[in-house]
């Protein structure tokens, strides 16, 4: 599937539902499993108190971000890491290009990183003749399929086992009835070659403890550990909001992030990295570069309402519970971050106009707010961005005029009553379509039969 833009959300979603109903089945099944594991994982700890505490820690971090960034930089440098500051995606790509050029890098292995998707690193590196291999199994699958990730944590959840059998049969020569274990083993064999040949490894960063300059990486497959330790250079791209004040804060964040994501008490592998290989150490990269990426984050931080989205730890719990996301998976959203969190980050990172209509791609059911481990008020922020869209005139003149007229009528009970009376006595096709916003009701549903008489008239006559 080719990459789309947020503006194509409606058409892409309709296309997926019409032409690829199996994706809805696969995504619904996978997210339901993730979510039921989360329920179990939250149930094993005092999750409500942890959520309160993580909310507070991130708020403290975000309101003192300048201090902690300087502290993190200073500690990273002390450990021998090179720290780069990228204000934009372009800056981040230029920094990477400079490193690959000066070290004559030909091959790169990459651990799973949503920030690298946001920065569109793979496309950029490909254009510069550098080979990039995704090493997370899900990312590997979608790289072979030339698709973007469909989910923050499970990039290939929209694909079935059968899809993988067919793909790996074609690409890796596995038998048509290969078991999931055999498929994983085949990928592991192929990837082992890539790890050994790579000049440079790219990772993201789940957390960066400012007081010690420790980068924390969570994973389940061990590929991130290999990507960050086998090649001679490691470049970590870290969003500036990913800092934590103290190393000891990691204890709760590591656990509840994983519990929120997959229900597991902790990732199978947790790597805590402090600088490149030291002289007395046998393993590790010769160089560690940490690229601290802004790319719209300080602009979001300055927004007095929407800044709360910066607490996000990218667990994907809001996607897993979202009934809208479950219909299509992530591709419909048209950029790196999908689901409820994607819909409130897009206006900040892409600009509101470019992000349309994502803030409207929600029924405001509120399930996401129930599960967020850092208590981001996602439904409120969706409404907030809708209000900004209305202010900016992005919702259409007809709708705005209709809404103004509706509000004006609602302040005049006699007029409101007369309008309702009129509508009730028009056939649906006419009455419904007289209100421009309601015309699409009958696209997918039958018209609702209005009551024979309105309640207000029943009440006037007397109810027995």
């Amino acid at each position: 599937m080719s990459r789309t833009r947020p503006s194509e959300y409606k058409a892409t979603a309709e296309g997926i539902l019409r032409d690829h109903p199996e994706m809805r089945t696969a995504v619904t099944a996978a997210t339901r499993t993730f979510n039921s594991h989360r329920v179990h994982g939250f149930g094993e700890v005092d999750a409500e108190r942890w959520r309160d505490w993580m909310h507070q820690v991130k708020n403290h971090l975000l309101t003192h971000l300048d201090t902690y960034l300087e502290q993190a930089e200073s500690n990273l440098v002390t450990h021998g890491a090179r720290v780069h500051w990228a204000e934009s995606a372009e800056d981040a790509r230029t920094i990477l290009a400079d490193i690959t050029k000066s070290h004559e890098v030909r091959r790169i292995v990459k651990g799973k990183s949503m920030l690298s998707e946001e920065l569109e690193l793979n496309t950029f590196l490909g254009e510069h003749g550098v080979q990039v291999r995704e090493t997370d199994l899900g990312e590997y699958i979608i790289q072979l399929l030339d698709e973007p990730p469909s989910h923050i944590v499970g990039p290939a959840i929209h694909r079935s086992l059968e899809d993988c059998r067919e793909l790996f049969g074609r690409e890796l020569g596995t038998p048509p009835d290969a078991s999931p274990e055999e498929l994983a083993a085949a990928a592991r064999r192929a990837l082992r070659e890539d790890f050994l040949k790579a000049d440079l490894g790219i990772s993201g960063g789940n957390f960066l403890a400012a007081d010690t300059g420790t980068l924390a990486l969570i994973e389940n497959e061990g590929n991130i550990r290999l990507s960050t330790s086998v090649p001679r250079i490691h470049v970590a791209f870290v969003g500036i909001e990913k800092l934590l004040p103290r190393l000891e804060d990691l204890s709760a964040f590591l656990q509840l992030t994983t519990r929120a994501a997959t229900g597991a008490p902790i990732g199978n592998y947790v790597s805590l990295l402090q600088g490149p290989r030291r002289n007395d150490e046998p393993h590790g990269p010769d160089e560690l570069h940490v690229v601290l990426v802004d790319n719209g984050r300080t602009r979001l931080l300055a927004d007095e309402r929407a800044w709360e989205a910066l607490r996000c730890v990218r667990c994907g719990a809001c996607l897993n519970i979202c009934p809208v996301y479950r219909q299509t998976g992530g591709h419909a959203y048209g950029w790196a971050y999908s689901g409820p969190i994607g819909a409130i980050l897009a206006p900040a990172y892409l600009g509101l106009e470019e992000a349309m209509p994502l803030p409207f791609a929600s029924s405001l059911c509120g399930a996401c707010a129930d599960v967020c481990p850092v208590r981001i008020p996602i439904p409120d922020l969706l409404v907030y961005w809708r209000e900004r869209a209305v202010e900016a005139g992005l919702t259409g003149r007809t709708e705005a005029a209709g809404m103004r007229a509706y509000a004006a009528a609602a302040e005049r009970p006699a007029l409101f009553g007369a309008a309702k009376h009129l509508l009730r006595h028009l056939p649906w096709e006419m009455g419904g379509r007289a209100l421009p916003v309601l015309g699409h009701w009958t696209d997918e549903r039958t018209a609702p039969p209005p009551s024979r008489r309105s309640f207000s008239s029943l009440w006037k006559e007397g109810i027995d």
Partner: protein
Amino acid sequence: MRVALFATCLGDRFFAEACADSVRLLRHLGVEPVVPETQTCCGQPAYNAGYATEARRMARHTLDVFEEAEHVVLPSGSCAGMLRTIYPKLLVGVDSDRARVLASRTWELSQFIVRVLGVESLGEGLFGRHVAYHHGCHALRELGVRDEPVKLLQGSGAEVVAWETDQECCGFGGLFSVKLPAVSAGMADRKLDTLPLVDWVTSADGGCLLQLAGRAERRGSSPRFRHLASVLWEATHPAPLEVP
């Protein structure tokens, strides 16, 4: 007890009988409701669509209409959620105190019956009935109404049948359902695909019932959808109206 009924726009036009049943039910429980004639719309459609200015105008009008009421009862979870949870956030400044007072006096119908009147059984009229209950999102999450309707149904003899997706969104979401009809329909399909065999599907929210019923009919299946207020009124009858 001065109780005002807010029938809501959807209630007035599409669930007139359910609103009338709300009146009958309240009277049966010893409460004589008033229905202020100047009530119109709570403003939720505007608020959800991002029209805060318009929503505020409608909210202020609603504050005026229900100023005198000791309790405001709505046969709608989402409109009750608007008054109870959203108004205090939406109205700041001069109206914020009034909004908070109204919020503390606002109830969804089943919530009012259980929490304010302290009633958990209405009779035996639902004996032998198999019912699926759809938890509207705003009743569930904005109001925290989870047990009240189920208690009333069970307390009146109904068997509330387990429904895997009873707390998942039906896909209505006001303008969402007309802006993104295919996604909205997919959400309704998920509910309908998992629906057990029951006599009635019921909910405290008319919007959800229109969505589910409209989609079910389009698909060619037609379980019977009934507003909670009507089912609860039927519960007060001494015995089932017909043998199930």
